[in-house]
């Protein structure tokens, strides 16, 4: 990789993977590490007088209501407004949030969170365990209409409440007293704490929700418990946050005001950044501008791994891919992934030979062994499989490749169709469809053959990727169904140690990849521009960047 010099501003995590495992274990086991969430700028750094940050944020937030919103554009802002039981350090490590520590029962099915006595809402009310009970019940209450209610499906009775079979009060969460919040799970859920960084489980302020209804997220109405409060919301223009003086860690927060701008046009966003209107951009830079940026703003470009995978799926329920693993494998092996990442896109994405992106907590992923073959060997093997699957030059495979209308998807589809043609003689028809039509067609599994999928994980754990292969998963658009795979994933919930679980998940990943229902293409990266005077920024695989961890240096 020729761009390594400026590719990683900081390594993904300061600690080694062993160190990460140990620290994660410490948090899980003891849950009482007394460090603060916000980082004060290091001594000797001269701060700017005006601590205001202007952030590009892509599309408009769909909602600021934690239990309603589902877009990452919204959760970027919600992370500043609300604080969950746990929080994240700049490098993405889990750290205590509203809960200062927690106990986990012997059978790991009961979590007891001890909340800080000094955690307050922006109006001065204390943040209590009752608020969490209220918010979690609200999440699963059918009347709320939350898209992310299944996030807490591991909590006992959650699914029954969502299905309307039980009242929200039967959700197995309880306030033992004002500062003790207890959750009971159906099964030990190793990723439960990671999941708590998701915006859907943020607390809301019950009295204001009850008083204002849908309008509770408006400036002036919104009572929040994070480092910032909502000051202005101009739909399709910007959202302005100001410091919350009631926040328990306010004294370690540096930036006074944060602006989140709607920046739908990536090219225009870069121009705004260059003209000085933005201090940092959202996570995607236009491919067409990257060469210029590398040339002219190398110090301000930050490219780092993201928790996401771009892959092609093969419909395993219909011909030609049904019961034809050799054909699927031949097609996957004949894709030159490095050409896609380095020549077609050239935006820092990482060629993928596995399914779970690298850098996921406590996990070492599986990769196809043919990754290390020479190109000739690999293609020879692909051709052999292609022939064995019953195809040849005289009888070539004719296949439809579908993607949703977008420039980069098109480039990739064209390149892969050319590779299949050149390497195997496959005749590919490329079909693009409007997003929602594409989603429907893909999910129906009737007319699709090969198709494009992208997936960004919800929480930092291999399970958020591997569950896509479960036979009953809603996102399983390839039709992969293997009872032994389902069982393996189910059993992984009940394993004792982190290592044992990682081994089981790795075995599952190998099994899933070995079916060749999917052809991984690349792992996502985030690419953004950040002004040199923005301090405290650290890349992390979740792409979570709390404003409270940033500061503006004198410039």
């Amino acid at each position, binding site marked *: 990789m020729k761009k390594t010099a400026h590719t990683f501003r900081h390594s993904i995590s300061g600690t080694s993977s062993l160190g990460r495992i140990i620290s994660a274990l410490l948090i899980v086991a003891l849950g009482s590490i007394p460090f603060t969430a916000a980082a004060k700028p290091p001594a000797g750094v001269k701060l700017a007088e005006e601590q205001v940050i202007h952030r590009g944020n892509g599309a408009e937030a769909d909602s600021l209501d934690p239990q309603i919103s589902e877009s990452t554009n919204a959760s970027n802002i919600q992370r500043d407004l609300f604080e969950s039981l746990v929080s994240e350090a700049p490098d993405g490590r889990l750290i205590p949030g509203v809960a200062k520590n927690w106990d986990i029962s012997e059978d790991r099915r009961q979590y007891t969170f001890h909340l800080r006595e000094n955690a307050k809402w922006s109006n001065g009310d204390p943040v209590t365990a009752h608020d969490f009970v209220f918010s979690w019940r609200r999440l699963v209450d059918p009347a709320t209409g939350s898209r992310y209610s299944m996030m807490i499906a591991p909590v006992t009775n959650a699914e029954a409440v969502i299905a309307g079979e039980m009242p929200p009060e039967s959700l197995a969460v309880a306030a033992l007293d004002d500062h003790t919040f207890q959750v009971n799970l159906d099964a030990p859920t190793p990723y439960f704490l990671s999941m708590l960084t998701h915006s859907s489980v943020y607390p809301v302020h019950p009295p204001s929700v009850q008083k204002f209804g849908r309008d509770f997220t408006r400036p002036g109405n919104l009572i929040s418990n994070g480092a910032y409060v909502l000051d202005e919301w*101009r739909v399709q223009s910007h959202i302005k946050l100001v410091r919350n003086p009631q926040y328990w860690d306010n004294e370690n927060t540096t930036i006074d005001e944060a602006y989140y701008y709607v920046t739908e046009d990536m090219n225009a966003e870069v121009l*705004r950044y*260059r003209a000085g209107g933005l201090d940092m951009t959202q996570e995607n830079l236009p491919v067409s501008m990257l060469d210029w940026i590398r040339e002219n703003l190398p110090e301000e470009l930050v490219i780092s791994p993201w928790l996401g995978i771009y892959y092609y799926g093969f419909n395993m329920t219909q011909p030609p891919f049904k019961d034809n693993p050799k054909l699927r494998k031949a097609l996957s092996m004949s894709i030159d992934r490095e050409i896609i990442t380095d020549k077609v896109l050239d935006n820092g994405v990482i060629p993928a030979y596995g399914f779970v992106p690298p850098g996921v907590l406590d996990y070492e992923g599986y990769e196809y062994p043919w990754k290390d073959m020479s190109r000739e060997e690999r293609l020879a093997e692909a051709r052999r499989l292609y022939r064995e699957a019953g195809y040849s030059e005289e009888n070539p495979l004719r296949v439809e490749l579908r993607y949703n209308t977008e420039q980069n998807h098109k480039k990739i589809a064209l390149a892969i169709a050319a590779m299949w043609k050149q390497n195997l003689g496959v005749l590919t028809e490329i079909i693009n469809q409007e997003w929602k039509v594409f989603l429907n067609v893909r999910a129906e599994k009737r007319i699709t053959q090969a198709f494009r999928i992208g997936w960004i994980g919800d929480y930092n754990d291999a399970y958020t990727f591997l569950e896509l292969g479960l036979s009953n998963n*809603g996102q399983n658009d390839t039709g992969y169904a293997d009872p032994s795979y389902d069982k393996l994933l189910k059993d992984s919930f009940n394993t004792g140690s982190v290592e044992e679980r990682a081994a089981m998940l790795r075995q599952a990943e190998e099994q899933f990849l070995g079916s060749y229902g999917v052809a991984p293409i690349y792992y996502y990266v985030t690419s953004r521009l950040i002004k040199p005077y923005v301090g405290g920024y650290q890349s992390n695989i979740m792409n979570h960047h709390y404003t409270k961890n940033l500061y503006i240096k004198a410039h």
Partner: protein
Amino acid sequence: MPSYILKRLLSAIPTIFVIISLAFFLIRAAPGGPFDTDRALPPEVEANLNAKYHLDDPLVVQYGRYLWDVLRGDLGPSFQYRDFTVNELIASGFPVSLRLGLSAVLLAMVIGGAAGIIAALRQNTATDYGVMSFAMLGISIPNFVVAPLLIMIFAVNLGWLPAGGWNDGAFKNTILPIVSLALLQVAFVARIARGAMIEVLRSNYIRTARAKGLPGWQIILKHGIKPAMLPVVSYLGPAAAAVITGSVVIEQIYGIPGLGRHFVQGALNRDYTLVMGVVIFYGFLIIAFNLLVDIIYAWLDPKVRYS
């Protein structure tokens, strides 16, 4: 005249009704629904959402309820921006689009009109060719090229103006979007005004005025401009309605909170209520502007009389 206006307004009712009905069924006929994303919803979650927004009722019931709500001026909640109603979104977006659009139309009228008339008066001279070449250029360069170009020059290189953002309508933030929006209209208006003016100059009453020995500028000002503006006005009516309901391209590039992108984004998101809301709103505006144009017509052209 008042009875004519009343008649026109009454005849708008069935038009609006047809618009509502078409929009209602067409958007629902499109594959995919408002809650489809790449994170497929579990069936019970989808059922909860559909129940909350009454999407589980029979289509006829939904249609009846929607008509009743529209009659009472309630365009419903947005499916995409779930903290807002469609009324709120239109109320916050329209003033922005109106301000940009009216400024652009005004600019187009004044500059385009003047340029066109001057070109007509200096027909087949360098001035004429200059104006017409510029107009041709304005018509053929799309605004998704013009807008970034203007940002590049005036914001990034010269640093005179902000590169985007609305900043609650600060004057500086509106200049580039207005210019980008007006450019096409200026070009069109210049061409139309030139053509009309040339025709007027050849007409008998101008010849008569000349024969009477009136000074040239007086002929143009008193007798020429008014009739030459007729085609411009009939062009500007619908153009104004289109411009003040916003431009998707301009709004996205400059990050402006107008109405325009609700059309496109709303349709892509299958935000049924939002799309229908802006369609109905747009329908009303078109009808109103066409009426306005006809009234101005009567004032400009004494031959036109309505009854």
